[in-house]
């Protein structure tokens, strides 16, 4: 899988009317950078720098990549593994998210995937795991059982960490920082729907961003399902929820977001939530924290005075 990913690392440059578009694949998603400039050299340079950064983060934190730091940490659970400052800062951030969500969001909940598999449409009546299976997996979950400091991290035996919930958004923010250092032209970075802009387009125009409807793949009455267009002038936008990963049991749809405290999926959550925030990683976490509130997702964001779109 890793080799296939890396073989797929091509950068395509396309000229549009007043901009260049750089497309590539990363983190199992189609990605795009748009720079509103006719300077081809600048576009190429941006493409090289941004893809290098995004792929670097992918290689470092992809838990499916045996060589990633994430995999090393997981495979050596029970013993300390040396970490760098970037990883330490991501762990600190994950800690904040854990605290702010009262433990609902936990990057050590990856072990639960042993009990659950979400394949969506192809397996509409997947059996739920037994409570015993869930409990067994849950015994390996618990942020408090992870010890880390600026030099090292130690997982309790059997535990796993998964940076998947924050990595893509983090890569968007990192890419934007590098883009801003290189150019003051308007730039948009989009990694599989999580995106951020450096500022408004030329002449103070907004970026028009389409948010994909979660049912877009269902092919049924596609005409009735319009993408939502959002005008973005600054900041970032991230979507949580996934059309392709869910279980339907007894007619109830369960999304792939798991409650790290109970080990069970969150019921009655919206299918997707899109949040706007100054930084992409904030938007992503807010969307995820909202989904974790289940039927109260919208209320949670409304009370926090956050701009969002929810689809049920």
């Amino acid at each position, binding site marked *: 899988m890793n080799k296939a990913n890396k073989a797929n690392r091509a950068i395509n440059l396309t000229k549009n009317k007043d901009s260049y578009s750089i497309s590539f694949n990363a983190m199992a998603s189609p990605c795009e950078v748009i720079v509103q400039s006719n300077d081809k050299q600048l576009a190429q340079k941006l493409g090289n720098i941004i893809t290098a950064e995004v792929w670097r983060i992918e290689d470092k934190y992809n838990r499916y990549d045996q060589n990633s730091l994430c995999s090393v940490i997981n495979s050596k659970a029970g013993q300390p593994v040396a970490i760098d400052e970037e990883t330490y*800062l*991501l762990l*600190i*951030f994950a800690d*904040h*998210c854990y*605290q*702010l969500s009262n433990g609902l969001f936990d990057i050590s909940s990856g072990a639960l995937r042993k009990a659950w598999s979400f394949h969506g449409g192809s397996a509409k009546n997947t059996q739920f795991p037994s409570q015993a299976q869930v409990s067994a997996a849950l015994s390996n979950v618990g942020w408090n059982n992870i010890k880390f400091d600026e030099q090292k991290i130690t997982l309790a035996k059997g535990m796993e960490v998964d940076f998947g919930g924050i990595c893509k958004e*983090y890569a968007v*923010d*990192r890419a934007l*920082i590098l883009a801003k250092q290189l150019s003051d032209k308007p730039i948009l970075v989009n990694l599989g729907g999580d995106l951020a802009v450096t500022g*408004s387009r030329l002449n*103070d125009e*907004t970026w028009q961003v389409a948010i994909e409807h979660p049912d877009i793949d269902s092919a049924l009455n596609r005409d009735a399902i319009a993408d939502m267009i*959002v*005008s*973005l*002038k*600054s*900041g*970032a936008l991230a979507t949580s929820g996934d059309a392709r990963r869910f279980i339907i049991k007894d007619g109830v749809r369960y999304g792939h977001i798991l409650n790290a405290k109970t080990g069970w999926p969150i019921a009655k959550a919206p299918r997707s939530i899109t949040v*706007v*925030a*100054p*930084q992409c*990683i*904030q938007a992503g*976490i*807010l969307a995820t*924290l909202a989904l974790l509130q289940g039927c109260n997702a919208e*209320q949670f964001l*409304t*009370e*926090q*005075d*956050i*701009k969002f779109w929810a689809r049920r």
Partner: protein
Amino acid sequence: MVAINTSGNNKMNNKMKTEKINIKAALTIATAALLGVSNLAQAESSTISGTEESAWEFDSAFLFYSEVDRVSAGEAIFNAKKTFANDEVLNLKLTIDALTGASANGAVAQPTVQTFTRPSGNGQYDVAPGDTPLDDTFHDTRVQLNGQWTQLIAPDYTASGGLHISKEYDYLSLGINGNIAVDFDRKNSTFSAGFSYFQDTFTPEGGIPKPFASMLVGDSNEPTWDEEFAKTRIGSEDDKSTADILLGFTQVINRRMLMQFNYSYSMVDGYLTDPFKILSVVDNNGVSQDYVYESRPDSRIKQSIYAQSLYHFDTTVLDVSYRYMWDDWEITSHTIDSRFIIPLGDSFGTESYLQPHFRFYQQSAADFYRPFIMDSDPLPAFASADYRIGEMTAFTVGLKYGLLVNNGHELSFRLEYYSQTSTDAGFEEPGVLKDVELYSSVDAIIAQVTYSF
């Protein structure tokens, strides 16, 4: 006039907003630590724009203030805020106060009945033996309008400008202000500089009294009364100007703590005397011989330093501030203000919080303050017996309860008790003054209801 702190209400409203965005604000700080960018202010502002201007947001507050046996005041505040496409913010605020009741006129209590002339010259009032003389003619309505425009003028530079107009029956105040704030150190620090200028005109009914002129007491229906009363007056109106400079520095200490430091320099010039205040002139036995109108210098330079710390515990927030003020009237004051915000979660069926409040205030007297004048002493250059510039200690304790009602609108109730005690700055008390209360206290209840929609 009794000063009612309306800016306090405004601050309260802002506080409520910050309570609502706890998670958002905490994430902003966490993100700043992770990315080394971002800032607090940016998170507050809407990043979305284009066709979507925000709707108007409204706050309304009703406040009731009542001093025991003295002034009662009602106040209504309407605040409207709109954020435009490029994050410009327009804020409009209307405040209406109605004040009624009695206020100490400055004279000392006596063992006998005292008669005073009303400030307008129309009629007299009597004060019973032993009572602190109160002028019971206070009633006034104030309408105040503030407009403020705030926008980003360059990356990291926010500018703001505003206009102020306030009108009472006998008072007109016009003001302008401007402020610029600069973010730096990856927006963990903000430096701001502001100025404001106010021009106030005072047209008290009955005119401006002549400093140290004796209060005319007698039959106001006599044909010569008006002519005699006019002799104690120097005009029908007077004015004063106030120029303030404010420097501020805000620093994010860590994800839990925010500190703010302010320095302010204020120059007031013009008519600073209170035309309604008098002093008793007493003999060696402490018996009133005369009442004279007070006299204050025509300029005052005030400075203050202020430090505030907001500390975010796991769920609660502690807000503590200290202010030290000093001026060239030799008044110094210390203010400690603290609030503790306790979110109650959903325990009452809706999101709610409690906010205990404690404030302590201590002030030294102005150099020309004196509770009375001895008739054997030469007349000083300036003198005032106004308790508000005398030595005093005050405290406020209060509790606020806020809850989210339908659609995330916020409703809050505040109840506070205010107690102010004037203290003796070391003046000798001759004769009968030993047996009366020279330094009275003021106790007040403040009740407020606020609704944001």
